[in-house]
C-alpha cells in the first residue's frame, strides 16, 4: 500500500515537474512579453501625449467643454487621459498575447470574451464623452439664446435641454455595452417621454405667451421690445 502511494506520488511529482518544465519557458516568455509590452505601452503613452500637446488637444477639449467636465470629475487633463487609455490598450493587448502563450484554455475563453467586450466598452465611453460634450454645448447655447430672446426661466430651459441630451447619451452607452438592456430601454422611454410630455403641456397650456415671443423672435415683424425702439448704431 505504501508502495502504491509512493509510486502515485512519484508519478504525480514527475507529471508536475514535466508540466512545470513545459510551462516554465512559457511563463518566462509571457513575462518577457508583458515586460516588453509595458515598456512599449509606456513609450507610446508619452509619444501620444507629446503629439497631443503639440496639437493643442487640451485647448480644443477646453473649447468644447470636455476639459471642464474632466476637472469637475477630478479626472486628469485630456491629454493625460488619452495617454493613459493608449497605455492600457497597448499593454492589455500585450498581456492578452502573453496569456495566449501560456495556453490555458479556460483562461483563453475568458480572455476571448473580455477581448470582445473591450471594443464595445470603448464605444460606450466615446458615446458618453460625446454626449457630455453635446449636452454642455446645448446647455450653453440654449441658455444664452433664451436670455437674449427674453424667454423666462432660461436656466430651467437650458438645464432641461442638457438633462435630455445626457439621458439620451447615457441610454445609448448602456445599450452599447448591453447592460440591463430591457430595463434601461424602458426607463429611458419613460423618462424621455415624461420630460417631453411635461414640456408640451407646459408649453401648450401655460406657455402661449412664451410661444408667441419665441415665434416673434424667429420671425420678427417689428421691434416689440424696448431695446429695439432705438437705433443702436
Amino acid at each position, binding site marked *: 500500500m505504501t508502495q502504491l502511494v509512493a509510486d502515485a506520488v512519484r508519478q504525480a511529482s514527475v507529471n508536475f515537474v514535466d508540466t512545470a518544465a513545459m510551462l516554465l519557458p512559457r511563463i518566462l516568455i509571457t513575462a518577457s512579453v508583458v515586460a516588453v509590452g509595458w515598456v512599449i505601452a509606456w513609450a507610446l503613452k508619452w509619444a501620444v501625449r507629446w503629439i497631443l500637446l503639440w496639437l493643442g488637444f487640451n485647448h480644443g477639449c477646453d473649447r468644447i467643454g470636455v476639459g471642464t467636465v474632466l476637472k469637475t470629475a477630478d479626472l486628469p487633463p485630456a491629454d493625460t487621459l488619452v495617454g493613459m487609455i493608449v497605455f492600457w490598450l497597448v499593454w492589455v493587448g500585450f498581456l492578452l498575447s502573453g496569456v495566449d502563450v501560456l495556453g490555458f484554455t479556460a483562461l483563453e475563453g475568458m480572455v476571448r470574451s473580455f477581448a470582445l467586450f473591450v471594443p464595445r466598452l470603448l464605444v460606450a465611453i466615446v458615446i458618453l464623452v460625446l454626449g457630455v460634450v453635446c449636452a454642455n454645448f446645448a446647455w450653453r447655447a440654449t441658455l*444664452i439664446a433664451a*436670455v437674449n430672446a427674453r424667454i423666462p426661466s432660461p*436656466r430651467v430651459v437650458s438645464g432641461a435641454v442638457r438633462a435630455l441630451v445626457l439621458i439620451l447619451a447615457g441610454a445609448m452607452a448602456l445599450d452599447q455595452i448591453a447592460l440591463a438592456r430591457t430595463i434601461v430601454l424602458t426607463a429611458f422611454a419613460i423618462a424621455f417621454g415624461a420630460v417631453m410630455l411635461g414640456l408640451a403641456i407646459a408649453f401648450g397650456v401655460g406657455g402661449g405667451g412664451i410661444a408667441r415671443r419665441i415665434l416673434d*423672435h424667429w420671425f420678427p415683424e417689428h*421691434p416689440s421690445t424696448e431695446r429695439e425702439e*432705438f437705433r443702436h448704431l
Partner: protein
Amino acid sequence: MADESLLSDDLLRQLVAVGHVDILVGIPTLNNATTVVEVVRAAQAGIGKYFPRARSVIFNADSGSDDGTPALVRDATTDDTGTVTASRPLRTTQRITTPYHGLPGKGSALRMIFAVADLLSADAVVVLDPDVTSVEPEWIPALVRPVLSSEAEIVAPLYSRAVSDGPLVTQLLRPLVRAAYGWRLQEPLMGEFGCSRRFAGHCLDRPSWGGGAMSDGVDLWMTGEALANGFRPSQTALGPRLLAHARKRPGLPDVFQQVMEAVSVCLEAHAGYWLTRGPAEPVPCTGALPGAVELGARPDVTGMAEAFRRDVVALHPVLATILSKATLGGVSAAAAAPGPLVYSDELWAATVFESLIAYHRAVMTREHVTQSLLPLYLGRTASFLLQYGSSGPAVVYDALESLGQAFERAKPQAAAQWKKA
C-alpha cells in the same frame, strides 16, 4: 492694384468713356428705390456747386435690386434753375450704374468702388449711404476737401447724435477704438466717408477684407485699416443722420453679433499696431455740428435695467468662463444692488476687454462669447440713459469723455492679457 475680374466688360466700356476723374462718388445700393434719388441729387448738386471745374463721376454698385434702383440712379435729374445761359453746368458729371457679381454685402460693393476709383485715377473718393434721407449737397465738399488739400487721407463723418442715439457706437465702439487704436474718432463705423486714392489702392491690395463677406463690419475694418496703417484721419461735421424707416433691418442680436465679430477681426488683424499704441490723439475736425436731433420719445429703459438684473443671474455660469472673478463680481453686484442700475465706466471697460480676450482665446464657441455680452451691453446702455438721458449736451459729452478715459486706462492690462493668450 485693382482686381480686374471685379469689373464686367460692360462696366469697363463705361469706364473707358469716363476717363480720368478728380472726384468719384460711390453709392452701393440694394433695393433703395425710396431714398436713392435724393442722395444722387444731393451728390450732383454738391459737385456742381462746390467743384464746378472738377471732373467727376457718380458710380453706383448695385447688388441685385429688384425695385428699379439702378434705373432711378441713372435717370435722376437735378432741378433746372437759372436763365437760358445758365442752363447747364460747366462740366458734365458722369454717372455709371452697374451690378456687381461678387459675394453679397457692402464689402464687395466697396471693393468695386475702390477698384473703379483706382482705374479712373480719382484723386478723392466719397462713399455715400443710399439709405440716408438727410444727405445735403454740403456733405460732398465736407468729405472731399480735406483729401484734395492733402490734409487727410480718410475723412470720417461727425453726426449730431441725441443722447439715446447709437449706444453701440457711443458706449462700445467709440471708446474701444479710442483706447485700442489711439485716435479719438467719434464715428468709427463710417456710413459715409471720404478717402484718398492711395487708401483705396491699399485696401485693394488686401486679399480679403476682414476675412470674407462682411456686411456692416466692413466699415469698421476700413477704419481699422486706415488707423493701423498710417493714413491720416480727419473728421467733418455732417449733421443729423436720418435713415429711411421703411427698411427692414436685422434684429439687435444679429447686428450685435456682426459688430462684435468685426471688432474681433480688426483687433486680430491689427494686433501689431494696437498692442503697442500709446495714448489717444485727437482727430482734426472741420465744420461745426448743429444741435442734436431727438429721434422721438426717449425710450423708457427701466425694463431694460430689470432684464439686465435677471439675465446676469441666469448667465452667471457662462459669464464665469468669460470674465475674471473680479469683473464678474462687479457685474453681479451691480445687478443685485437696489435702486437705479449703475454700471460704472471702469466695470464696463473691463467687461468689454475681457470679452474680447475671451473671444481671442476661444474659451468657448466664439459666438457664445459675443452673445453673452449682449445682455451686459443692454445693461450698460440702460445704466447710462438712466443717468444721463435727460442731461444737456455738455454733460453727456463729459460723461462719454470719461468713458473713453476709462477704456484707455483699462487698455494696458488688456494688451498684456492679449499677448499672453
